[in-house]
């Protein structure tokens, strides 16, 4: 009697059609070199011994039979922990184009099991949605006959923005006449490299960014600045003349600030600014999170913590009791640390309460600006639910804050910076200038820079997005030297320069037809329109169709 064994399956058993990415492997091309299996960040690939039946027919002896061949093949694992993330590093290293992942067009049900051991999904990247309202805003006030369009290639353009508290004109004149304190102001390029921490990024990535930023400033004349994120700054940078291109971030974990404070006496110059992080668009209400995989010896030293432990920052600052108190304590303390020579501004996540924060900042004479990070912002590590479902889109949040300032006549005093999804689908200059015309003084770009300057593979189709695990296949967000040595800092620097040169040219190509060249068109809302009447009404811009 034939015994029928029950099918070996469990609730979380998955097969290849259940996965989001399916590896296509061509046996006929594979030379079994093993490069793909060794490079795969999730070890989704493995070499397996397989038996193949070879039917055998011996005509002379009129005998049929089988022979079996043992061969080695590449196979895809189906457990959640080793699922393919679609990074395609296998395709990159394969000498024979024998392997590549492809997105599964069916409904991959693996996602229902991204909560094994009761742990919800954590990942890097940003909200998994390719929708972008900013992509739909176009510039439609074209100068033609009533005023001539400018020549983007030949006219001089003033495209820089101001970071810092600006006084009302009469107050400025009074203080200048009496020798009173004038708040520090930096003239910077309006596309700022958003805060990504030393810890979230690999040392090579960080070095590449800094080299690129220095090149932009010192050779190309584009005053780009970059923010550190929470986690401090390498001491050699703190004591270098490059500190002036860096916005130091202080966040609720205060990581790295021992080193920073100790370095103050040895600093050759002041940092560009201090950013106090109260919130982040990707994970509003959450503190920073550096998972233990990435807390290497170097990171541990810099942050003053033991190696290999999770570093979750608290959701709020210890000093935070109320906004008034926080603004007063933190902004003034930070200002005082550098003798009131450095602009200090808060960063918050997009929220319906952004306007109340803003109104408090307006009344604090030391607040140097406000950065609002929208729901499409990226992160190195967060719970999936925070990224996908928490936060406020940046466009309307920024616009209502700007219009609030306009109503009070204070729009020149507190510069608003916007972040979150700028360049999400590659249209970085368009997105940035759309936000500027809605009222931003500048924008922060993080994910876009990783994608453009260092070849980050992450996407809003949940490709890769394993920044949290320290296994970044490109070496951008890994602390493992065996991985991050893949990333050449010089090449990153070159791409940073290319990226900003291109943004600068595209800015001219947008500003020139609008007849603007002498100042950044902040709040030039008559120049933009959108093909959605509800959005147009909310943003108080033109509806176009």
């Amino acid at each position: 009697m034939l015994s029928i064994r029950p099918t070996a399956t469990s609730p979380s058993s998955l097969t290849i059609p259940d996965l989001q990415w399916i590896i296509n492997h061509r046996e006929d091309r594979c030379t079994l070199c093993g490069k793909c299996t060794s490079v795969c960040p999730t070890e989704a690939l493995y070499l397996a011994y397989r038996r193949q039946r070879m039917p055998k027919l011996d005509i002379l002896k009129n005998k049929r039979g089988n022979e079996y061949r043992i061969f080695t093949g590449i196979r895809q694992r189906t457990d959640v922990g080793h699922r393919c993330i679609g990074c395609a590093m296998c395709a990159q290293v394969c000498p024979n184009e024998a392997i590549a992942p492809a997105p599964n067009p069916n409904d991959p049900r693996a996602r229902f099991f991204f909560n094994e051991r009761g742990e919800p999904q954590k990942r890097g990247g940003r909200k998994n949605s390719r929708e972008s309202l900013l992509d739909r805003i176009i510039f439609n006030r074209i100068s033609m006959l009533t005023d001539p369009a400018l020549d983007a290639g030949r006219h001089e353009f003033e495209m820089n923005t101001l970071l810092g508290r600006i006084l009302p004109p009469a107050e400025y004149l009074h203080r200048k006449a009496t020798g009173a304190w004038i708040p520090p102001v930096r003239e910077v390029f309006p596309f700022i490299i958003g805060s990504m921490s030393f810890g979230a990024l690999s040392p090579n990535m960080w070095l590449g960014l800094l080299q690129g930023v220095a090149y932009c400033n010192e050779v190309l004349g584009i005053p780009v600045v970059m923010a550190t994120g929470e986690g401090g700054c390498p001491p050699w940078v703190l004591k270098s003349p490059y500190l002036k291109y860096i916005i130091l971030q202080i966040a609720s974990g205060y990581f790295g600030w021992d080193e920073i404070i100790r370095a103050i006496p040895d600093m050759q110059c002041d940092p560009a600014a201090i950013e106090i992080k109260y919130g982040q668009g990707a994970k509003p209400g959450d503190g920073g999170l550096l998972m233990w995989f990435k807390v290497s010896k170097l990171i541990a030293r810099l942050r003053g913590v033991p190696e290999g432990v999770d570093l979750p920052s608290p959701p709020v600052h210890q000093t935070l009791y109320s906004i008034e108190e926080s603004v007063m304590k933190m902004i003034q303390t930070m200002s005082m640390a550098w003798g009131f020579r450095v602009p200090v501004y808060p960063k918050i996540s997009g929220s319906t309460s952004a306007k109340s924060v803003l109104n408090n900042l307006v009344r604090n004479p030391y607040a140097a600006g406000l950065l609002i990070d929208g729901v499409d912002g990226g992160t190195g590590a967060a719970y999936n639910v925070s990224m996908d479902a928490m936060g406020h889109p940046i466009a309307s949040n920024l616009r209502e804050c700007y219009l609030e300032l306009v109503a009070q006549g204070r729009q020149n005093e507190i510069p608003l910076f916007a972040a979150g999804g700028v360049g999400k689908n590659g249209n970085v200059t368009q997105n940035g200038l759309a936000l500027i015309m809605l009222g931003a003084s500048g924008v922060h770009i993080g994910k876009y820079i990783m994608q453009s300057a260092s070849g980050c593979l992450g996407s809003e189709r949940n490709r890769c997005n394993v920044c949290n695990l320290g296994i970044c296949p490109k070496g951008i967000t890994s602390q493992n030297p065996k991985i991050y040595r893949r990333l050449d800092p010089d090449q990153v620097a070159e791409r940073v320069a290319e990226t900003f040169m291109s943004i600068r040219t595209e800015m001219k190509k947008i500003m020139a037809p609008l007849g603007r060249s002498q100042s950044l068109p902040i709040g030039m809302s008559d120049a933009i329109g959108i093909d959605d009447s509800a959005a147009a009404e909310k943003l108080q811009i033109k509806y176009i169709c």
Partner: protein
Amino acid sequence: MCRLALKTASIPFSPYSVLQAMEAMQEGYDGSGLGLLLRGLKFTDYTYRKKDPVLSGIAHSEKALHRLNAFMQDKGFSKTYDHEFDVDFSRIEAKDRHKYFLRVYKVPAAWARYSQEKIDDELMLTRLALRKDGENHNSDLTVFSFWPDVAMIKEVGWPLGVGEALGLNDDRIMARVVMAQGRQNTNWGINLYACHPFFIQGIATMTNGENTAFVPIKDWLTGMHYPGYIGYQSDSEVFAHILHYVLRRLKLPLEAYKHVITPLKTEELKLHPQGDFLMGLRNVCRRFIIDGPNAVIGSLPDETCILVMDHKKLRPATIGGKPGEWAIASEMSGVDAMIPDRDRSLDFQPMRENMVIVPPTRQEFRICSQFDQLPPAQAA
């Protein structure tokens, strides 16, 4: 596009002569209107006292005129002269004109105790109240200016034709400064208030070209909630208000106007003797940076006249003349027509860093450069 003409002379002249000069520049304007500002008034029928405010505007109905009379009486103003234009209504395009008024008033006796600043504010508030009154009554009352020694006329139609219809060729009214502009704002809906020159507390400017930075500038001016910063039916009105802001509210020297609307670049300011001050000024007034293309021609209460251009100079203008008599126009043919007997080789078109100032003495014009120092007494 707007054609602009300003003439300033030590001896009063007829505004009609400037309108004739406008004809020389007719190629290029659509002749859709006339905006006229006269300063340094002289009437043949009346001896004008320089301190008395002059109210100019249009009453579109008898009712409106009665309301105006009642309002002024109520406020304590007494009318000392009412200039009767010899109007040929058949030559005026618009049909709802009842009376063009140009009246001299004596200020209320209580104002004797007021400071000059307060008097200036009260004059502006009176003009604004009348404007509001007109707007509340279906726009039946239009008030252009209420200020000592300033008269204004704005009307739809071919400039010379409007001048003749109003009888400006009868020499009964003369002025030492005349600003004329030959177009209604046909880019937008026609509105008499949208016509240049624009006027606020004695300060007047007119502009050609389009102001591409209009919305951010307007937003900032509006947010100041200053009573006079209203209107903006034309994108050029902000130039007058910025000048007012710089001179009257910030109390900066006239030369600072150019530094506010077209500041020097950072590299240039680093070499400037007052670079630190000017960089700060640029930052705090950043929303006033204009992007042109514009030539701005203006005049001040003391009869000083100015000419500036935006940074790119896509709308050049020319000044020419001789001691005692100067003409500024958007086209060289306009200068030729206003003062033909001058040395043309001394004509000047300002560069991007220049501001031309014709002082009240009118003996010569001054070319200020942004690279020069500001007058030391006033620079902080």
